[in-house]
């Protein structure tokens, strides 16, 4: 499986089995594919600002680097199989990812200023 597409493809794993799931992953720049384990830690319920409830699997991986303390955790909505939240450690810090309620798209492009300069 392509690691670069993880936010789209990882939710498709059979988490309903529970336990630890092992999958072979590859990304551009890696010397070879590697086995990576994803463990279902449990279930979590997140409530969005609009009141929508997300019943999630909480899934953790060491990203194929056991013993390094690195981790990646995914909150995967069971109903839609979409990652709604992700946390990982990266260069000694947290890196967080949050799904926005709607895609970030500009419907009305900014018009250039009439005099050609910006204020």
């Amino acid at each position, binding site marked *: 499986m392509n690691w670069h597409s993880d936010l789209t493809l990882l939710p*498709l*794993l059979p988490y309903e089995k529970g336990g630890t799931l092992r999958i072979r992953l590859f990304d551009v720049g890696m010397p070879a594919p590697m086995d990576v384990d994803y463990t279902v830690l449990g279930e979590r319920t997140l409530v969005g600002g609009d009141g929508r409830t997300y019943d999630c699997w909480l899934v953790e991986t060491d990203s194929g680097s056991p013993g390094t303390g690195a981790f990646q955790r995914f909150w995967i909505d069971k109903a839609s199989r979409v990652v709604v939240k992700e946390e990982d450690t990266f260069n000694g810090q947290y890196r967080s*990812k949050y799904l926005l309620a709607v895609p*970030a*798209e500009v419907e009305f492009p900014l018009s250039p200023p009439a005099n050609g300069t910006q204020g």
Partner: protein
Amino acid sequence: MRTPVSGPIPFLVLALSAAAFPALAAEPYRVTPSDLHLEYLRPARLSYLVYMHGGPGTGVRRAVLSSFEVAQETVDGRPAWVITHHWEDADGTMHTARTVHAATDVATLSQESTWVRSGKRMSSSVVPAEGRGIA
């Protein structure tokens, strides 16, 4: 002072642990393409806010708006899922990628990507089935 435990008790403890925490005790389940819930794939446009931090109150750094589109297409005569990424940070577009996955098992058919880091632009193109990759 605790008395050293010997005999069958440690085995009983291990057995109970395995029963209580099957995820820790069981061998990982090897996922195959037939296990994947491909029926959940659907055309979509999603955006994620991505940022670095050291915990609450430590400040937010390197904020990135990561957007991608999932589309169902026919590529080279094959049904495919195409995932198009567009990541943008404070300086502009920092990453784009177009990955073509086989509809049958989401195997990677091709991927083209571009990264901009420290003002330097890097591109890659891979076609796994042909053993071809350019970076």
